[in-house]
């Protein structure tokens, strides 16, 4: 590799060939403002906010998209450049609704930050602005094209990371709009509702469907017994709402906050994760014995399941029929728990706090209803929504004492906790399947081969005499790679874990928007690693780390479900999938 010498703001720099002006300037602390740029997506070069002056060039050049060449003399600042950047941001504001104070992203909007930082204090060019209706057909998310600044980060994440290609830039010029094909409602599109578009959006052009109103109303209704369950990934990220460093485990404070909000029972989705492992390991062993419908593919991630139904219906028989932990927990709350407590299940209101917006959709799938108009899960809140509710209620989160989950549906093992990370479901399943198959205790509990943040891992695990080929994929473009391998017969897998979001649930579409410097960077591997770290730490500290050792799991089988894979377990804990239209293009 060759080194290139150049000058930035009078300071000499020596960088590897191919380094962009932005990367080189960042290194020497000359921060060039930016907007459409995203470090983990392809370079767009469209917003032009990052323009700099290069000696000998007639016009400004975008720092994000220009590679440094030998001898380049670069100026990142001058009155003219600053004015141009200001004018550009003003042009965006001129075509943007003036609803900042009532906007979901008020206070953590990149456009707002930029306008303040660059000093846009007057509006010279105001005129007409684009008009588009708010598109709220999806139960998961809302598309508000008037707030879109056409940075195309959502288009890029939807195609480059998720391989869904649902969003595209349509029409042209001032009329350009980002939308699905035919400007179809999100609900009639191939959208898999993962919510990564929300996470990368610098403004509020994509935002989750609000469920807080529904939850406030339930909490205020004396006739309802309102219970809540929290997914593993929430405890790893909720503290970020109060500026705790990412990866600070906050389980205890979260539980206390939920009690103060008025929930009658606070349960842990991790319990159902343990249960999922019991059912899924059983299913896996059965399939291995019969040698059919392999590889078995996990089904906890509703974004992945939607992807399966639109893009790979031919793999539906391979998907585990297990409901997701959220749906198992909700089902048990309205059956087992209702029976035990002697409460009419229709008077139980189940709230699930999830790192995910696809869960909002999953909860409304017709398969997941107790009976007409009675869903197992009544409302799904994202981590962001819960943080807001706690703040709105005036709860001093940081100074809360630690609380404990209610039992039995709140007790979990370490295996249940790591479900929130990519590779976690696989590792939890291996801990149990190993012992079920071999009848011996597993020697090395931590299957580090399947841990990492990368999108794709393959490993072969020795389980007794059996070589089990496993693969873990997160981000659906990686899932495509694995599925195509299976299809072509290139490799025989036994077990595949797929999570829709890059990094798994810890980086789901409902997680807090964390800032790296001035910018929200949800795909940051460092952020994902820290949140994962919190879950692995909790796992390590647990006395019981294998799902099948969970005493309450043993109890619920004995008292209620029978055995894993029993008829009752099948009726309550399993589901089915169907091919959906429009069919996605692989």
């Amino acid at each position, binding site marked *: 590799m060759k080194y290139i010498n150049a000058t930035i703001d009078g300071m000499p720099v020596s960088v590897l060939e191919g380094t962009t002006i932005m990367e080189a300037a960042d290194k020497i602390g000359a921060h060039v403002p930016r907007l459409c740029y995203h470090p983990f997506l392809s370079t767009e070069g469209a917003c032009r906010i990052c323009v700099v002056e290069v000696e000998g060039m007639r016009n400004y050049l975008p720092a994000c998209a220009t590679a440094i060449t030998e001898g380049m003399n670069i100026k990142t600042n001058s009155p003219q450049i600053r004015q141009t950047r200001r004018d550009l941001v003003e042009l965006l504001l001129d075509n943007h609704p003036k609803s900042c104070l009532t906007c979901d992203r008020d206070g953590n909007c990149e456009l707002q930050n930029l306008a303040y930082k660059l000093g846009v204090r007057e509006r010279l060019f105001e005129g007409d602005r684009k008009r588009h209706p708010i598109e709220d057909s999806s139960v998961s998310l809302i598309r508000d094209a008037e707030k879109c600044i056409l940075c195309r980060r959502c288009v890029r994440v939807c*195609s480059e990371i998720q391989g869904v*290609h*649902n*969003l*595209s*830039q*349509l*029409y*042209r010029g001032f009329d350009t709009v980002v*939308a*699905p*094909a*035919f400007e179809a409602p999100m609900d009639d599109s*191939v959208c898999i509702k993962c919510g990564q578009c929300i996470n990368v959006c610098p403004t509020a052009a994509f935002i989750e469907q609000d469920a807080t109103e529904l939850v406030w109303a339930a909490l205020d209704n004396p006739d309802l017994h309102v219970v809540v369950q929290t997914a593993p990934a929430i405890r790893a990220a909720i503290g970020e709402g109060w500026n705790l460093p990412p990866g600070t485990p906050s389980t205890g404070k979260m539980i206390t906050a939920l009690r103060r909000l008025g929930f009658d029972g606070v349960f842990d989705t991790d319990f159902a994760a343990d249960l999922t492992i019991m059912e899924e390991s059983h299913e896996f062993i059965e399939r291995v014995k019969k040698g059919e419908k392999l590889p078995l593919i996990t089904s906890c991630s509703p974004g992945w399941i939607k992807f399966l139904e639109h893009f790979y*219906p*031919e793999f539906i028989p391979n998907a585990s029929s297990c409901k997701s932990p959220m749906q198992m927990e909700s089902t048990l709350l309205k059956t087992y728990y209702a029976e035990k407590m002697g409460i009419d299940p229709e008077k139980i209101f189940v709230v699930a706090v999830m790192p995910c917006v696809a869960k909002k959709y999953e909860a409304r799938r017709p398969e997941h209803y107790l009976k007409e108009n009675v869903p197992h899960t009544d409302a799904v809140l994202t981590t962001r929504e819960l943080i807001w509710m706690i703040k709105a209620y005036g709860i001093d989160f940081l100074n809360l004492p630690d609380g404990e989950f209610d039992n039995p549906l709140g007790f979990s093992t370490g295996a249940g906790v790591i479900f929130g990370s990519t590779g976690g479901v696989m590792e939890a399943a291996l801990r149990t399947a190993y012992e079920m198959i071999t009848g011996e205790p597993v020697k090395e509990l931590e299957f580090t081969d399947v841990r990492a943040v990368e999108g794709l891992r393959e490993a072969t695990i020795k389980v007794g005499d059996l070589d089990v080929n496993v693969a873990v994929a997160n981000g659906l473009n990686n899932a495509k790679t694995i599925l195509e391998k299976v299809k072509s017969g290139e490799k025989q897998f036994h077990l595949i874990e797929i999570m829709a979001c890059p990094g798994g649930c810890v980086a789901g579409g409902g997680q807090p928007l964390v800032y790296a410097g001035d910018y929200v960077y949800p795909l940051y591997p460092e952020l994902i690693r820290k949140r994962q770290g919190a879950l692995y730490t909790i796992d390590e500290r647990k006395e019981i780390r294998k799902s099948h050792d969970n005493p309450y799991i043993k109890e619920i089988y004995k008292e209620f479900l029978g055995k894993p894979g029993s008829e009752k377990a099948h009726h309550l804990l399993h589901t089915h999938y169907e*091919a959906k239209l*429009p*069919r996605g*293009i*692989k």
Partner: protein
Amino acid sequence: MEQTTYTLDQDIQDFISNCMTLEHPESYLIAVLHKVQGRYGYLSEKHMDEVAHLLQVPTSTVFGVATFYHFFRLKPAGKFKISICLGTACFVKGADLVLDAFKTELGCSLGDTTSDGMFSLEGTRCLGVCALAPVVTINEQVFGNVKPTQVSEILNKMKEAKVEA
């Protein structure tokens, strides 16, 4: 598992299949859309969806391309396609006034089709016959040196031609 039934004419399907055997099949998207519009007069959603599946290009991309280029139309055109040259030479000679006259006469705006499906009104960039500016074409027929006052006469001729035919 492919449940899509294709309604595109067989020869267009064959053309796409052939593209699929070549390098960078996705680069034939515009050529395919030209063929489809040439055959059916416009690009329907159904046809765009079929092109997406046959050419394995995301439907959102196909629609993005179809809406990007002024040439592609998403609605059927009128019986008579009126194109007014809006190139500079024609503008200098008063094409904007001619356009206004067509709008008033037809009661429809640029890019629209009259409610009876008879006329569609579109602007076009330089047709290359600046000597005849301002120029209007109706289907294949070229009208040069058009004055706003001639517009109603031209339209009446078209309507009569329709009746005779």
